[in-house]
């Protein structure tokens, strides 16, 4: 099982006017093996940047990022990454999109077929193997992306607001599927979201980030909610409301820094 460790990580982007824009500064985070960690924070706090650093799609300006103790250098291709946008290739069918990872890794075609058919069925896309992404709904595309990621059986899954663009009902269905398909505690999951309820319902640990620039980890909360979990039922668990309120107090402070007006933010009510 996989651990992720960030030590004093900083990331500076060149700003639009040429002056440096420090997004992350002194960010330290330890992700234990087999845990489901949700990262929440106000927009612009560098949540996505943090994930990209772990994936090696971007390199830190300072500090170290390590997976299983090994420094991250270059794009990591043994992990899974679920993007907020569609990362399916528009010119490939569902099947060929799901098969990409296995084919890149040189698997035999019979094994590719078996494993892809299995995963396409598991995400509920049986019968849509020959459809192109443009012929699928947003939720179905997300399912295809989920299968594309999981068919390679990576130990570490990074998810960058994967369900943000979906409608409310579809989102709940996909959250359910996510817990069903990879909530068994064998995979290490880093899940970025701006939806606090989603974070509490899915994760074991909630990491709240400070408002940017120079963002970092503000606080960490273990949720202590039982597993296996049902996304809808967990919301009526007595701890759920308390947790949401506690974490929200922290988060609201950071969001206020951005908008400057506490009254402009709806108070947390359940």
């Amino acid at each position, binding site marked *: 099982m996989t651990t992720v460790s960030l030590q004093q990580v900083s990331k500076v982007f060149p700003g639009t006017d040429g002056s440096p824009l420090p997004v992350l500064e002194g960010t330290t985070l330890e992700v234990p093996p087999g845990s489901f960690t949700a990262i929440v924070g106000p927009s612009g706090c560098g949540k996505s940047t943090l994930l990209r650093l772990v994936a090696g799609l971007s390199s830190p300006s300072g500090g170290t990022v390590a997976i299983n103790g090994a420094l991250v250098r270059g794009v990591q*291709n043994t992990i899974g990454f679920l993007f907020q946008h569609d990362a399916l*290739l528009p*010119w490939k069918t569902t099947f060929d999109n799901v098969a990409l990872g296995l084919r890149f890794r040189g698997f035999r075609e019979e094994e590719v077929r078996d494993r892809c058919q299995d995963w396409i069925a598991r995400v509920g896309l049986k019968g849509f193997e020959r459809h*192109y992404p443009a*012929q699928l709904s947003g939720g179905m595309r997300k399912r295809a992306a989920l299968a594309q990621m999981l068919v390679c059986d990576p130990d570490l899954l990074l998810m960058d607001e994967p369900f943000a663009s979906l409608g409310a009902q579809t989102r709940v269905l996909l959250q359910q599927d996510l817990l069903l398909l990879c909530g068994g505690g064998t995979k290490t999951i880093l899940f970025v979201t701006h939806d606090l309820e989603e974070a509490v319902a899915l994760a074991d640990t909630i990491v709240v980030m400070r408002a940017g620039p120079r963002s970092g980890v503000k606080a960490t909360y273990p949720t202590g909610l039982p597993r296996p979990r049902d996304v809808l039922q967990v919301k009526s668990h007595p701890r759920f409301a308390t947790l949401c309120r506690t974490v929200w107090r922290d988060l609201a402070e950071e969001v206020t820094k951005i908008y400057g007006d506490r009254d402009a933010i709806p108070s947390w009510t359940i």
Partner: protein
Amino acid sequence: MVTETPSLPGPSRSGPSARLLAGLRLLLGAIALGLWEVSARQGWVDPFFFSAPSDVGRTLWTLVSTAGLYPHLLATVQEALSGLALGFVAGAALGWGLAQHRLLGELIEPVMVLLNAIPRIILAPLFIMWFGIGMGSKVALSFVLVFVVVFFAVYTGIREVDSRLVDGVLILGATRRDLLLHVHIPAIAAWVFGSLRVTVGFAFTGAVVGEFIAASRGLGYLLNFAQNTFNASLMMASLVIIVGFILLIFGGLKVVEEKLTPWKAAA
């Protein structure tokens, strides 16, 4: 798991049905031709300058049935296709090369932008002076019209490949070769097909205009000949042949495009 309804295109789009629309368009065309014919016969317009659909039809039939047309058609098609092929290869190669080398790209791009901005057809007299009144000058004119368009299709196609798609396949373990094969080439194919209609049109424009200025064969020569002999029917018939031929090619391209980029047809 719940299956959602896929967003397949349906016939539910409101508005007139396709068949009705096609019928109305045909009717409109027939009325226009009829008006033209009547006007010419009644002497409302001078048939010497305007001809009449029946005369144009007769001339067209003579051209097609006596084989008088084919050397001209062949010459124009040869010139246009040569210019198209050469322009395609050169434009794609340069676009590809410049997209790989940032410095070279920045250096040459302004030249291409300028070439793109000017009406390149003005180079016709120059090419005739350089390459003579044979096929060479027409191929060159076709080439220069096509080349710039293909260059920009490939150049922007490579530079503007969605970086998010690239990130996605890199995480899935793609090598540089995989990236080229599965992301870059299909993305460019979409751009190139998008520009193909323009380039085919340009290839014929180059050939016909070149012939029009100075040639001994070709559809453009036929046009020029008709003008010099004040033969309105021949001129109209030549125009019909040129337009008809290009429409035929467009139809063929559409079929090829649907075969090679099925994800677009599906959307």
